[in-house]
């Protein structure tokens, strides 16, 4: 392993020795580092130092990736500075995390050409969050964004390239991403893709060529619409949309299409005139000339949404008219004012106006966006079973799937990123966390604890009741809700006797509301076995009872992990649940399980706390030592990696206005603690038996 203070290797032997150590797992008797040593020898010591920083990280991910990087990356140093190299390598590692070795090697090999002018390039990962908001704001159907080599829209997902560069200017490159996103959005929004398209193109001798011409015409037509609606974007696109750029016959037709609010029909009409002429050079914000992905998505969506529409309509009607459901389709219409923002839908069934529930509005809008109108047969009941009959046929389960599945949580648990301190970046969607319920235990831990600590508890209880929120009167105020009669009388008497009177004659009612939400995260890793577990359970009992007295809202979750794919968060008490025997049974059931992957659980707790409408949000963790997990990747979630990720998760929580507080039971009270809890407040208990005695007092002082 290379360390920052190691001198870069100078001689060929030194280089060879270092490379052999790092790449050992990828070498064999026939595959040696000899060739790589020659490449490295041509680099300056400073460049070799940089390469030696990254190589162990890459080889740690995968030995083969490390080997290939050792071979290929030195050549990149001709065109890239330090920062650009870091970004390139992060991209390669992202690809490895998401799509595996082959994709990472492709990213490694395929990027040679664009190396030189990398300075102004922007990566999709950097702008992904912003683009997601951007495309949502443009309106219409929710769209997902994924990374892919060739830009394209499926009308549900936009595929955007992993990086873009324009004029070596990062700002222009970001704008290019915005523009490409808006362009692909517009293709789906303004009707380019429709089911009869292949049929309409088949009248030409070469439908493939015709489709490329059609899609080119359409691309410029929607650019025209965008330029009119979004003039700022129009200015950005203008240099590429100048009709003088195009050869005849394209110039006249494209100019006409861009100038007017034409429809798809207009493009189809002009198709014959440009068919056969070479296509114009496309602007950088146009996508692939391929309609098949969009059409196959469209077909699936139309079927799915028709079933869904009829299902929701059927359910709505069934709730309105539980007995008869006969509906005369001749009397049923749906009127949509416009497709534009603020569209209002009015559905008339049997001549009766019907207020559309939100889910029906959403699906209806989506159907109208695809078909331009709601086909009359959607409103006709299918035989005696009514609307629900065909909705429950094949694929009903699919129809139940949310329309925007890509924008929602994955069905199975939550995905969270993890901080990799070596790359100084996140591994995206790295950990899968599932919420599990803990089966109750009959162990009477609550009764036992309260009995054991009876004296302590009574003392604490009194202290806590003082803290509880409520109304109280503040006396002797200069202004207030009402005259304080006692004070007023005293004052009146004093004045009578010629003394100076107190002008503070009022009393004021003050409402003290604690308004605190607390989430307690309990370590259930294997190391808490025995005494530690008992102490944790006892402490939890006392803390929960204290929180109940204080009337603070609180939740309790336990955690244990077994690799990043199995992070289990055990629900002991949710915020909305009362502290009842059920919850007490689950506290009793807290038992040691596997490992402590702290970061992901802190992120989940942050997510849960963030939804609580409280003035103060407190995240308390009770754990017994260093974060660590069982992992297959080199070094894994232990040592410095785990510490840094935990620290990062605590920083994230603080940024969101949450107050993290860590209680650690650690006999050695390691010197790693300040590094781990740097951003958070923490307390270390060297004797676990002290925990039940101290925890409630810690909380009291923390919140008073």
């Amino acid at each position: 392993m290379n360390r920052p203070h190691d001198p870069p290797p100078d001689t060929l032997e030194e280089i060879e020795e270092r490379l052999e150590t790092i790449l050992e797992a990828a070498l064999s008797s026939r595959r040696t580092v000899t060739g790589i040593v020659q490449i490295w020898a041509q680099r300056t010591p400073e460049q070799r130092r940089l390469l030696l920083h990254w190589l162990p990280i890459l080889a740690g991910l995968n030995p083969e990736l490390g080997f290939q990087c050792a071979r290929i990356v030195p050549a990149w140093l001709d065109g890239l500075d330090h920062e650009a190299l870091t970004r390139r390598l992060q991209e390669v590692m992202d690809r490895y995390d998401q799509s595996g070795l082959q994709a990472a090697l492709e990213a490694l090999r395929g990027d040679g050409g664009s190396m030189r002018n990398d300075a102004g390039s922007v990566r999709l990962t950097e702008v992904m969050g912003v683009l997601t908001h951007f495309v949502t704001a443009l309106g219409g159907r929710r769209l997902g964004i994924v990374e892919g080599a060739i830009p394209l829209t499926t009308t549900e997902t936009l595929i955007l390239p992993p990086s873009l560069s324009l004029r070596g200017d990062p700002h222009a490159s970001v704008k290019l991403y915005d523009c490409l996103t808006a362009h692909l959005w517009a293709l789906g929004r303004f009707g380019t893709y429709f089911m009869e398209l292949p049929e309409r193109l088949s009248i030409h001798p070469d439908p493939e060529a015709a489709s490329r011409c059609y899609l080119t015409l359409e691309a410029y037509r929607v650019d025209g619409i965008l330029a009119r609606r979004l003039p700022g974007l129009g200015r950005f696109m203008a240099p590429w949309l100048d009709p003088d750029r195009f050869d005849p016959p394209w110039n006249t037709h494209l100019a006409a299409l861009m100038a007017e609010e034409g429809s798809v029909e207009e493009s189809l009409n002009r198709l014959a005139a440009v068919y056969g002429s070479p296509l114009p050079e496309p602007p950088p914000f146009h996508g692939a000339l391929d309609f098949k992905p969009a059409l196959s998505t469209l077909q699936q969506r139309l079927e799915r949404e028709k079933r869904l529409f009829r299902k929701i309509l059927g359910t709505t009607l069934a709730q309105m008219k539980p007995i008869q459901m006969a509906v005369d389709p001749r009397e049923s219409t749906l009127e949509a004012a416009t497709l534009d923002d603020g569209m209002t839908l009015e559905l008339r069934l049997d001549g009766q106006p019907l207020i559309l529930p939100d889910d029906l509005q959403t699906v209806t809008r989506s159907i109208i966006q695809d078909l331009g109108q709601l086909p009359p047969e959607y409103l006709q009941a299918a035989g005696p079973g009514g609307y629900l009959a065909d909705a429950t046929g094949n694929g009903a389960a699919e129809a139940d799937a949310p329309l925007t599945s890509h924008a929602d949580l994955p069905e199975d648990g939550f995905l969270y990123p993890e901080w990799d301190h070596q790359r100084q970046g996140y591994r995206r969607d790295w950990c899968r966390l599932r919420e599990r319920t803990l089966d109750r235990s009959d162990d009477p831990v609550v009764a036992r604890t309260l009995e054991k600590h009876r004296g302590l508890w009574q003392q604490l209880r009194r202290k806590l009741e003082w803290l509880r929120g409520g109304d109280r009167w503040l006396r002797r105020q200069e202004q207030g809700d009402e005259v304080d009669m006692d004070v007023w009388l005293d004052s009146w008497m004093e004045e009578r006797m010629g003394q100076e009177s107190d002008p503070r004659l009022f009393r004021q009612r003050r409402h003290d509301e604690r308004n605190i939400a607390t989430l307690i995260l309990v370590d259930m890793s294997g190391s808490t076995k025995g005494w530690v577990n008992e102490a944790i359970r006892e402490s939890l009992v006392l803390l929960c009872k204290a929180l109940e007295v204080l009337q603070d809202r609180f939740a309790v979750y336990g955690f244990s992990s077994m690799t990043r794919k199995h992070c289990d968060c055990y629900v002991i008490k949710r915020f909305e649940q009362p502290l009842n025997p059920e919850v007490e049974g689950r506290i009793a059931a807290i038992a040691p399980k596997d490992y402590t992957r702290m970061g992901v659980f802190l992120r989940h707790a942050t997510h849960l706390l963030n939804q609580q409408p409280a003035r103060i949000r407190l995240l308390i963790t009770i754990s017994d030592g260093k974060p660590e997990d069982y992992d297959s990747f080199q070094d894994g979630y232990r040592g410095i990696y785990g510490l840094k990720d935990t620290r990062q998760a605590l920083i994230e929580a603080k940024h969101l206005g949450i107050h993290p507080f860590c209680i650690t039971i650690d006999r050695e009270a390691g010197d790693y603690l300040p590094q781990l809890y740097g951003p958070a407040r923490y307390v270390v208990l060297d004797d676990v038996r002290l925990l039940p005695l101290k925890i409630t007092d810690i909380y009291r002082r923390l919140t008073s």
Partner: protein
Amino acid sequence: MPHNAIEVEANLIREQPYFASQGSEIDLFTAAFHNHIPVLLKGPTGCGKTRFVEHMAWRLQRPLITVSCHEDMTTSDLVGRFLAVGGETIWQDGPLTRAVRHGCICYLDEIVEARKDTIVVIHPLADNRRVLPIDKLGMLLKAAPEFCLVISYNPGYQSVLKDLKQSTRQRFVAMEFDYPPASLEAEILHSETGIDRTMADLLVRFGHLTRNLKGNGLEEGASTRLLVHAARLIQSGTAPALASEAAITRVLTDDAEMLSAIQALSETIF
């Protein structure tokens, strides 16, 4: 009480406040006023609720007393309290009592911000009794015939703590307000600020883009009020991009990613 009467007189609105009607709200309010039914206005922030009440007060020629509710507001703040002057205590009407006594329109803005025990004081005023109990004076004050109670709230608040109880809401006629349709909103910007129609249309378009983000990272999109602010800045010479950034983008959120997204949207327009 002449002192109070003068003060009430000062609450009379003499110039017509600009209000662009979206439907039958003026007729509905007038009917409720004449039938002694209190009015509940619902709608997102900055969509024109307060302006509507001002307009109606002008139309009906009644003084308007507005109270912005907050969580520290007590019943005494509404009804009144004793003040000590020169060793004596004198009673001073609160804004609600003044409105009840002198037949004003009393507008309790953002009523859900007030505490529940404060809200109940309006209950006997808001049904057919039309009386205000003043405990400290030991009296029931009968409302003047022209007295009208108007409350407003924003149902967009998702918090369960900020909901209006059924026992309160079922005393009112409710009117729903929303941001006006695009063309009307542009007309409002034009009338309020004198901004030209093209720029008004662009501002409205920008507003609509931000409203699509409501519930997707933004609590609220840009209100008509914010668009008016931006239009005013533009009218007084600020560049449109800067005006929209200062008056809209930065007001809506502190989240860095969302700020960049709204900034990108603004750049597509201005």
